């Protein structure tokens, strides 16, 4: 029997949407709420029709008991990373026989809980990522013949369990990353396969039709014998291949992948000697990532004429120099070019000619679609950036060099579509910033590490350009937001970390830094901003780590 005041509290808590907003962020209180109060609160929320899906999903993080929910027509339920969902919770969930999609990755489920899922016969999607799924548990799931999507990354499944996968005749998506599976039997409907960080000895060997594979993710995988391992794969439909960080050595299979659009070979053994294999399949490529490989300007030269449709090219951390830039200009549809951490200087010396050097970046002028250019950690100087001022489509520019000065800012004033500009660690002065007259499209200006700037100068710039969000260690100014939304946006999160970091002084970022967004989900991040942990989040997560995020997200997707 509820006491009088408890009843009044629950009524007040569920008065309307606004009152729910007032308490829903009180995570510590929600965690301590006794289960009968949690149930009463949920019941009242349902009664008042205030329990919208995102709130329910959020509350699952705190409440372990939700037996009062009668969701007879529910088709899709995402409980990923809800640690309080355990085997007891799954017992309630399996009563929802209509479920077609169930996400329970990284929850508190044990092998027993996974076995219980076998009674949800209508499941077409099942995400068990990060759960202790054993061969036996997987075997008990073979009654789920409607399954099209199965994610069991990080499970305990071995080759024995992998043999069971053949029972799922409709399976088109399979994620076996971080498992001990080395031999995958033939799965005739498979279109997308993740085997990141696996040791692969044979793939899709066996009777039946060859699966129409479209997407293969081998990031960090080891191959005992790549020719043998990949022998049984039908590659003519393959459009996405991520072999970053893998042990692939010879790339002889590449020429058979004519439909390839996205190719990630970063941190692989790829080099000038092997790049001809990439050139063979260049005709359809849209996105090519060769960062952290041995490919030099010579290799880019080999690729130059073979990539007519390439839109995104990443060559960061490669030994390329300015000669590569002129080859890159022969790829007409490029939108994004990443040349960070390379030997690009921005000009090439010519002996005997007059003048004895020319500006290499000028060659990129011919790329009419160029939207993003990253030249961070290169030795480009002010003079080398002069050609950029005529790039009509450039929206996003990242620079990071201690040799850049106000002169660079001046060149960039004339870019008509510039939206995002990041100049780190440059020697920009107050008067230089004062004279900077960017296009009205500028939304973000990141000046972190520009140590000469003072707070007053930055504030006066912010006043002059209220639509621009400025990032710097000394300020946390945000563009005036006419919508006045209540939910904290990512940019507000940044401003908070900036504010906190300011007290700590500058925090240097180690190269091994892992993007916090991968480690935490959104709610956790929101909670973190009020805790001391946020001190550890470097202040410019956005721009400097975007490369890292790109690399890792491909293995996560």
């Amino acid at each position, binding site marked *: 029997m509820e006491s009088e*005041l408890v009843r009044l509290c629950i009524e007040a808590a569920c008065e309307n949407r606004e009152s729910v907003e*007032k308490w829903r962020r009180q995570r510590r209180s929600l965690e301590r709420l006794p289960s009968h109060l949690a149930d009463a609160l949920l019941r009242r929320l349902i009664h008042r029709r205030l329990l919208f899906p995102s709130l329910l999903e959020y509350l699952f993080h705190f409440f372990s008991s939700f037996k009062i929910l009668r969701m007879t027509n529910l088709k899709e339920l995402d409980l990923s990373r809800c640690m309080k969902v355990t085997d007891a919770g799954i017992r309630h969930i399996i009563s929802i026989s209509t479920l077609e999609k169930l996400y329970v990755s990284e929850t508190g489920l044990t092998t027993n809980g996974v076995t219980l899922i076998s009674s949800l016969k209508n499941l077409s999607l099942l995400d068990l990522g990060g759960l202790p799924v054993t061969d036996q548990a997987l075997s008990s799931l073979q009654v789920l013949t409607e399954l099209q999507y199965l994610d069991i990354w990080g499970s305990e499944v071995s080759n024995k369990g992998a043999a069971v996968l053949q029972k799922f005749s409709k399976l088109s998506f399979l994620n076996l990353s971080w498992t001990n599976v080395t031999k995958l039997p033939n799965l005739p409907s498979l279109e997308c396969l993740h085997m990141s960080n696996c040791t692969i000895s044979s793939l899709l060997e066996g009777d039946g039709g060859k699966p129409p594979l479209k997407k293969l993710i081998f990031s960090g995988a080891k191959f005992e014998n790549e020719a043998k391992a990949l022998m049984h794969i039908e590659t003519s439909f393959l459009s996405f291949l991520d072999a970053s960080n893998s042990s692939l050595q010879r790339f002889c299979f590449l020429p058979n992948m004519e439909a390839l659009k996205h190719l990630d070979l970063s941190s692989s053994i790829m080099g000038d000697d092997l790049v001809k294999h990439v050139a063979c399949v260049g005709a359809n490529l849209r996105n090519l990532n060769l960062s952290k490989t041995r490919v030099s300007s010579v290799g880019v030269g080999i690729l130059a004429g073979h990539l007519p449709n390439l839109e995104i090219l990443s060559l960061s951390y490669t030994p390329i120099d300015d000669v590569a830039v002129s080859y890159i200009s022969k790829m007409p549809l490029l939108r994004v070019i990443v040349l960070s951490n390379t030997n690009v200087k921005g000009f090439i010396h010519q002996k005997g000619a007059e003048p004895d050097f020319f500006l290499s970046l000028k060659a990129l002028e011919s790329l009419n679609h160029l939207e993003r250019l990253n030249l961070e950690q290169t030795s480009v100087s002010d003079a080398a950036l002069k050609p950029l001022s005529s790039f009509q489509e450039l929206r996003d520019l990242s620079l990071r060099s201690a040799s850049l000065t106000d002169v660079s800012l001046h060149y960039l004033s004339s870019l008509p579509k510039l939206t995002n500009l990041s100049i780190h660690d440059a020697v920009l002065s107050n008067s230089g910033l004062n004279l900077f007259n960017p296009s009205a499209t500028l939304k973000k200006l990141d000046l972190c590490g520009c140590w000469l700037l003072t707070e007053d100068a930055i504030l006066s710039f912010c006043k002059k350009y209220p639509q621009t969000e400025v990032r710097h260690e000394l300020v946390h100014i945000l563009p005036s937001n006419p919508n006045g939304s209540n939910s904290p946006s990512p940019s507000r999160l940044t401003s908070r970390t900036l504010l906190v970091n300011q007290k700590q002084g500058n925090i240097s970022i180690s190269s091994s830094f892992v993007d916090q967004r991968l480690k935490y989900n959104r709610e956790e991040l929101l909670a973190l901003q009020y805790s001391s942990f946020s001190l550890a989040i470097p202040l410019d997560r956005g721009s400097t780590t975007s490369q890292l995020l790109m690399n890792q997200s491909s293995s996560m997707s």
Partner: protein
Amino acid sequence: MRKEDMVKLISAEGFEFVIDKDAAMVSQTINNMLTSPGSFAETQHGEVTFPEISTTILEKICKYFYWHLQFASGKETEFPIEPELTLELMMAANYLHT
């Protein structure tokens, strides 16, 4: 007013609320503490400490005691609760059986 008719409720932060014993008795838990046979410190000094209840919440609780007495005597008013207090107040009320 006699001292025996008053009780002192102490919050987690150490704030003291001196209220009528009749009001405090609205809580079944406090009632049990103050009337139970034996020599509980609470019974002797008329003092109860709540290390789990913050000052804001304890103040609200005290207000509720008085409101409850008035309500019971026929004065029908609303007891306003700010939404941001609901979770903590709910847990305190649950503990105090009020």
